[in-house]
């Protein structure tokens, strides 16, 4: 049983990575990140079921809490970014790079 869960978790993780890299819409990028977290949670729960120990569920709970705080920050970031550039395109925010000739 636990193997199936692990396989599912790996698949979801890969889907999350694909979405993270391929999309230009920052909201979709954020949701892919959340998907990654969820995949990890899934695998944690599976292991917890296998071991019969609830410790993994506690970890999972904490991960969810952190995801919540991350969501709050992301949202305020969206508001700020949208206000400054008026677009939701990830390619527009390139101030990290250097001025290329």
């Amino acid at each position, binding site marked *: 049983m636990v193997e199936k869960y692990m396989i599912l978790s790996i698949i979801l993780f*890969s889907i999350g990575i694909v979405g993270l890299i391929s999309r230009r819409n920052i909201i979709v990028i954020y*949701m892919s990140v959340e998907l990654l977290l*969820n995949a990890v949670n899934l695998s944690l729960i599976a292991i917890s079921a296998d071991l019969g120990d609830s410790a993994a*569920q506690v970890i999972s709970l*904490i991960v*969810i809490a952190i995801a919540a*705080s991350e969501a*709050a*920050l992301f949202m305020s*970031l969206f508001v700020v970014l949208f206000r400054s550039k008026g677009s939701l395109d990830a390619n527009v925010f390139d101030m990290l790079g250097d001025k290329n000739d």
Partner: protein
Amino acid sequence: MQNDIIFTILALLTIVSSIVMISAHRPIDSALSFIVTLVSIAALFGLVNATFLFAVQIIIYAGAILTLILFIIMFLNIKEENLPDEKYKNWWLLGTSVIVLPFAIILIKLVTMSDISVNNIPSENFGSIHDVGLKLFSQWVLPFELVSIHLLVALIGSVTLSKRGN
């Protein structure tokens, strides 16, 4: 036997909805299919008797986080011109999945090849709120406190970030 069927249905649901999520053009469509993903993951949690987390997932993830996302999406009043013009979205998706494929396959191979299932017999109240709460407040109290500070920081941070700068 039943478990397997339910698991298969739920797994398929999760995968399909997550694929829809990453490939939808409008963010609202992605958000809505994400809700489906989250609920099915919660169901998967429930399938292994992790009842507390099943509830927590639905309440916090689907209920709070996704609601926040939907709220922001609607608040920002996104029009068509604000969305990025992703001409090659499908090619990108295909290409990236090709790159990720070996990664996934290797991991799956690792998992299936190795002998990881221990198959302990869980106790009576495995996964119940009583059990998890006991663990949380005895062994894991330090992370619990830290998480609360973390939430506080996130709160202050988000308020600061979104102030109109002066």
